[in-house]
């Protein structure tokens, strides 16, 4: 699929509010038929959109990571069986039924991709960004991961191996990044604020304590 919106949809601005794009019209038609025929409850539609637009997001994953940084017992449970461990923090649900957490080390960096579609741990990270779902990332994360990371501004030491996880089944991956140096004084919420979405996909690292201060 195109990573820039090209053929089928018109980004904001090309259509004034008073004029609907062909895609808006096409989707409205489908929606009205599905609702009219009783297949779709409009309230369910609203609830679904509201859930994934506003409730789930990478703040959930950040809480998990921060807890793992401060609590060795939790960290051990998380790496051994991530799904129940995340449930301890109330994190889980659709798209996170079978979680796997993989920990970065100085020797090994982890990177998550779904070459075949867009599998992503929704309840932990929210809906995936467009680049995660797009051909440039999906095609090259498995064959040229260092080149891909460089495009994110991340250059790893040559000696640090890369483990790429292609989400080809219903397991969903989250990367547990290394705790940044100089964060010994920070409490759990402050640590969570260092944890970026990309650091939990493997295309970034957590912010450093200076960046956030």
């Amino acid at each position: 699929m195109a990573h820039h919106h090209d053929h089928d949809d018109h980004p904001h601005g090309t259509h004034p509010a008073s004029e609907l794009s062909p895609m808006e019209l096409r989707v409205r038609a489908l929606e009205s038929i599905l609702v009219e025929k009783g297949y779709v409850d409009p309230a369910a539609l609203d609830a679904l959109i509201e859930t994934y637009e506003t409730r789930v997001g990478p703040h959930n994953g950040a809480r998990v990571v921060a807890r793992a940084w401060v609590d060795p017992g939790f960290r051990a449970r998380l790496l051994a069986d991530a799904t129940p461990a995340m449930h301890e923090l109330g994190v889980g649900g659709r798209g996170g039924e079978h979680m796997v957490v993989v920990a970065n080390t100085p020797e090994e960096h982890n990177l998550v991709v779904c070459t075949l579609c867009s599998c992503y741990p929704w309840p932990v990270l929210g809906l995936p960004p467009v680049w995660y779902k797009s051909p440039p990332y999906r095609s090259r994360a498995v064959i040229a991961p260092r080149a891909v990371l460089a495009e994110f501004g991340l250059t790893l030491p040559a000696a640090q191996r890369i483990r790429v996880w292609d989400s080809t089944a219903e397991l969903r991956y989250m990367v547990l990044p290394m705790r940044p140096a100089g964060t010994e004084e920070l409490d759990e919420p402050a640590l969570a604020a260092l944890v970026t979405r990309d650091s939990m996909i493997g295309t970034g690292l957590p912010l450093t304590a200076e960046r956030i201060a």
Partner: protein
Amino acid sequence: MNGGQDLGGMHGFGPVAPEKDEPRFHAEWEKRVFGLAMAMGLSGTWNLDASRSAREALPPGEYLTSSYYAIWLKALERQVQHHGLVTPEELSTCTASAPAAPVKRVLRGEEVALLFARGFPSDRPVPDPARFSLGDRVRARRINPVGHTRLPRYVRGHIGTVEAVHGGFVFPDTNAQLAGEAPQWLYTVRFCGRDLWGDQAEPGHSVSVNAFESYLEALEPERIA
């Protein structure tokens, strides 16, 4: 299927282009497509694997030039027609005119929070013992099904190591065809990057995939005669 969706190892798409401060959705219609696809996915008429199959069945050129939610929309339009829920005339006239077909369930607004917080696990018991064990060397089979499969082309024929045995899971290849969940043992198999891509590949990386048992074969010497 060897369609436009099977992207691992392809060239020519240009650099990754992260968007700064990306919104969750880029247009109102994307939200609606997302919600419609999720709601219809719970109607019991098809399943998640069938939806993936419908998306990847778009002609490769169309798949690769459509935005993400445009692919979802086109697949959903096909699915509702294929299953007789909506007629082509209804879609072209934008008006419901045919009687509604029965669906197994209609997701209600008040159910969403609980159902989606609980999720829809796809692990299933499998009566037979697992054929492969941790550390086994296995070969990804050279299969090329015309239907849905979750074994990407880039690992087929390659030898990897079983690094996890996950239990039984719904088998997407049959489930996508609504031919049964036929659960199988699921493994994580790790491949060395150099083995997958050749000596000119980037050094020092490995790729792990989740592979169903029937995707794998025990290592036997290849027929060389």
